[in-house]
């Protein structure tokens, strides 16, 4: 058997070599805001564990470097990622001086680059395996469960990001639920308003260009400005419309954030509804008319199901975008994970930034995978049905 290089493997092996031997694995800081000192893998872990981790990394990189069976590459990436995830927690415990509650241990660039390299390998294997949508969601669930177990087991408790979490556990969940409510609530409102608006734009051609242009222009207003601009009109509504204040409508806080996200969400929903309906084959419509279907029956029985995957794509764009934009709501007192990000930037406490940024990225990522799977399933179902 001759060994041949895998092109991607060469890139991955080079990244791994740099990260494992030249970049710091963990950072030690005497307290949460002083500059850190770098620790390599062998310095950050007990001698045997450190050597074991290096061995795992080198073997996994070699498996990636040469053309090897997919199953082996899958195993290599999973084992390497699991070892890294487990041992960064061990490094946290090992580096924290006994009884010291001020010292902070955080993963350093080497750790993140190693995670990136092996995730790249895993992503490549998963892409080549061409998993079915359900299997992809399964992988997502398995990975989330593994991370959840690690969190519950407490093996990461000595890492700085979890120390920040321990100090704000209550507000973390409160802001988290605000974040999700903002992102999902504004999406729901945008779908309720955007779908009929899209259908109307599809039926009434004169409306189409006007509505889409207005929505396009709203998208060009920078998010922080739009959030700010809504403070005044909502403040006016709160003081002048009876009952509005009781509903929680206020100039600052959640209300302007909700309205801003709603306005940003409208364009993808309306535009994709229009595009989806326009893409319904004329033959399908003619057949429906020929069968004597009324306009309403045609809309719900023929046009809507056929346009559904395209509309769903719009919803995916909106959801991922909203989860990201909801971080900015914190600037106007709207809450969400952005609270930690901006507090962290203000105090130059990067662990606090991570506490806000990591859950946001994870949420957006999970939302994208789940909705992509749903889109693919509805699209294949359609193809099977029309075939």
């Amino acid at each position, binding site marked *: 058997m001759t060994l041949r290089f*895998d*092109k*991607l493997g060469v890139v991955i092996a080079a990244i791994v070599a740099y990260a494992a031997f030249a970049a710091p694995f963990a950072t030690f800081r005497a307290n949460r805001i002083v500059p850190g000192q770098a620790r390599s893998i062998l310095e950050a872990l007990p001698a045997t564990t450190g050597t074991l981790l290096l061995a795992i990394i080198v073997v996994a990189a070699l498996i990636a470097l040469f053309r090897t069976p997919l199953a082996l590459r899958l195993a290599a990436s999973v084992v390497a990622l699991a070892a890294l995830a487990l041992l960064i927690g061990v490094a946290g415990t090992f580096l924290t001086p006994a009884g010291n509650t001020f010292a902070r241990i955080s993963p350093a*660039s080497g750790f993140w680059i190693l995670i990136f390299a092996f995730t*790249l390998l895993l*992503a*490549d294997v*998963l*892409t*080549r395996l061409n998993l079915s949508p359900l299997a992809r969601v399964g992988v997502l669930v398995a990975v989330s469960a593994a991370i959840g177990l690690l969190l519950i087991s407490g093996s990461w408790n000595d890492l700085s990001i979890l120390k920040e979490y321990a100090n704000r556990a209550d507000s973390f969940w409160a802001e988290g639920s605000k974040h999700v409510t903002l992102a999902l609530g504004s999406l729901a409102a945008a779908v309720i308003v955007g779908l009929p608006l899209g259908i109307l734009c599809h039926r009434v051609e004169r409306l189409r260009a006007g509505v889409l242009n207005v929505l396009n*222009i709203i*998208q*060009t*207003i*920078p*998010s*922080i*400005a*739009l*959030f*700010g*601009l809504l*403070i*005044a009109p909502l403040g006016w509504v709160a003081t002048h419309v009876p009952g509005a204040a009781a509903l929680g409508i206020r100039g600052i806080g959640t209300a302007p954030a909700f309205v801003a996200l709603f306005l940003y969400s409208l364009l993808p929903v309306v535009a994709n509804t229009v595009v989806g309906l326009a893409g319904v084959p004329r033959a399908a419509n003619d057949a429906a008319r020929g069968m004597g279907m009324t306009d309403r029956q045609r809309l719900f029985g023929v046009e809507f199901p056929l346009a559904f995957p395209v509309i769903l794509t719009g919803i995916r764009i909106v959801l*991922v975008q909203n*989860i*990201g*934009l909801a*971080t*900015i709501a914190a*600037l*106007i007192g709207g809450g969400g994970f*952005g609270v930690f*990000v*901006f507090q*962290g*930037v203000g105090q*130059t406490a*990067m662990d606090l*930034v*991570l506490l*806000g*940024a990591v859950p*946001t*990225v994870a949420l*957006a*990522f999970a*939302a*994208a995978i789940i909705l*992509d799977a749903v889109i693919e399933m509805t699209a294949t179902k359609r193809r099977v049905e029309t075939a």
Partner: protein
Amino acid sequence: MKAWLPSLLRLALVVLLVAFVTNPGWFEPLLKPLTENNAPVIYNQGSLLTLTLLHLRTVLIATIAATIVAVALAILVTRPAGAEFLPLSRSLVNIGQTFPPVAVLALAVPAVGFGEKPTLIALFLYGLLPIFENALTGLTTLPANVVEAARGAGMTGWQRLTKVELPLSAPIILGGIRLSVVISLATATIGSTVAAKTLGEVIIAGLLSNNLAFILQGGLIVAALAVLIYDGLSAIERYTARRMGREAE
């Protein structure tokens, strides 16, 4: 609608924008009702013109860098030698799009410090994706007969790339650049949360001092820039598309 009306509106917008950033004082009476307690009406901690130019410069640098890298990557993965990277690069682009700009910005700060640098990194990363995706679409949907003809005429791989494939993909790549610029113009304002000198500074000053006039002027300048640049790039795109005989997106 008459054909000259959009051009006239655009011209009016340009004149208004230039007048506003060079002589904001003229517009003071218009914005006056938005302020309370005799707060300053026009941003007074720096010149609007300088901030606008710095904002544009940040976006320009990031877009140029993103264009070079994204197009180079797209060329690489569409060559036979790089074909192995194509599926992976597609999934990476998909994953990359789920990263919120604020998170990228905040996470870049520990690596490069406050100021313009983290903003440039965030804009660069965020700008990569639309350009890469469009360049990929452009290079993979070339009419097969044209590419075959170029091959038949004895062109080398490099000649085919520079004389046939890239010019034919230009309108679609431009479409990606247009998207990327519009996103960057808005995202650059968030850069001011990490002390970058952009128009976001005006908006954030407004948010902090509860001054609606500041928020409005900052927001409107950025929106006007985005609309004008979007229009300009669309026009260039249509022009190249007509020359190449391809439909722009």
